[in-house]
């Protein structure tokens, strides 16, 4: 079975501080890893490293096509939500908007969305991309209970279809996760 994500002996130094070293990471189809650790232990940096936005200080990393949900919304504020999302490669836009209960908001300008709606929109952007590897940085932040349920359902479906998820979160996520502890 081929891996969707494979990292070997990864090390990352940021701002003169060693965040982690000798980290081996493997994610196959249907697998999910929950990165845990105290604040500042490098959870977000690991996500950005896997995304290719940071270079590892040592080690090698290979991955399949990935989609990232982090702090940045990356949607044009003046556009209606539907058009803003379709700026990105979004082969599964309809399903993603339905999954996160955004259908009714397709015509609403992004700048008028509430915090929670914007958080759901960034997750919908990930789901709509059709990428096999999802990288989620604190995906539960700002979500209400319905939003969290929708996220867990979306992750379960994604894994069933052979996708993989790497998530950093200080909150518990639904379903079966392999834990990866950083720092401490």
């Amino acid at each position, binding site marked *: 079975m081929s891996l969707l994500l494979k990292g070997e002996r990864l090390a990352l130094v940021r701002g003169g501080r060693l965040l982690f070293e000798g980290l081996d990471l493997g994610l196959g189809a249907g697998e999910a890893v929950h990165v845990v650790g105290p604040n500042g232990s490098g959870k977000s940096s690991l996500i*950005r490293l896997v995304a290719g*936005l940071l270079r590892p200080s040592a080690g090698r990393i290979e991955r399949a096509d990935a989609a990232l949900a982090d702090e940045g919304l990356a949607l044009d504020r003046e556009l209606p939500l539907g058009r803003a999302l379709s700026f990105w490669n979004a082969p599964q836009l309809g399903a993603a908007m339905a999954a996160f209960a955004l259908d009714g908001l397709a015509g609403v300008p992004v700048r008028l969305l509430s915090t929670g709606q914007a958080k759901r929109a960034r997750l919908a952007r990930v789901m709509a991309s059709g990428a096999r590897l999802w990288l989620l940085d604190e995906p539960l932040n700002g979500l209400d209970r319905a939003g969290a349920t929708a996220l867990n359902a979306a992750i379960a479906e994604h894994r069933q279809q052979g996708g993989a998820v790497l998530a950093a979160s200080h909150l518990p996520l639904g379903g079966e996760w392999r834990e990866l502890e950083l720092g401490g």
Partner: protein
Amino acid sequence: MIGRLITREVRRGLSGGAWLPIAFFLLVATIVPFAVGPDARLLSRIGGGALWIAALTAALLPVERLVEPDRADGLLDQLALSGTAEEAVGAAKIIGHWLTFGPLLLLAAVPGSFLVGLDSPALARSLLSLAIGTPALAALAVMVASLTAGLPRAGALAGLLMMPLAVPLVIFGAAATGDSESAALKLEAAVALFLVAGSPFVTGAAIRAART
């Protein structure tokens, strides 16, 4: 993705105050006769250079909205994940920015040249010189915007960075408005080509460097 990015730049430029640099350009051109006096001969001699100073200062105005908002919103990161090279992002931004800056500035240069007392042949030379120069000004603006993105007081810093970089362009550009026989126009074109060709690479490197 590149096409979509250019369309987006144009849309955001037009809705985000593309007229501001143009109004600024015309205002500077209006100030010149007040500052140097109404002597028509003196005005027509310095008019071409004055237009270039107006164009350069106008090109500085949009710098802060070119790259920083996209970096802060994570758009540049998402573009990287979608497999778009940072250099391509830079090139698309230059093209998109020029489309909302260059043609409008050339249009404004017509009344602008009358404000600084240029006659029709001088107007034609100025338009040609500015037509060659505006892509370079747009490229410089995007490059400087990417170099200063995320820094405090980026606006002031961008001015300090952009003015010296534009010196060769202004020298040959302004010279080309005066004398049609000289080689200034060709040299201006060479400088402009150099800036337009080099800027996407500087922009790409700056975007990547801003992540670490």
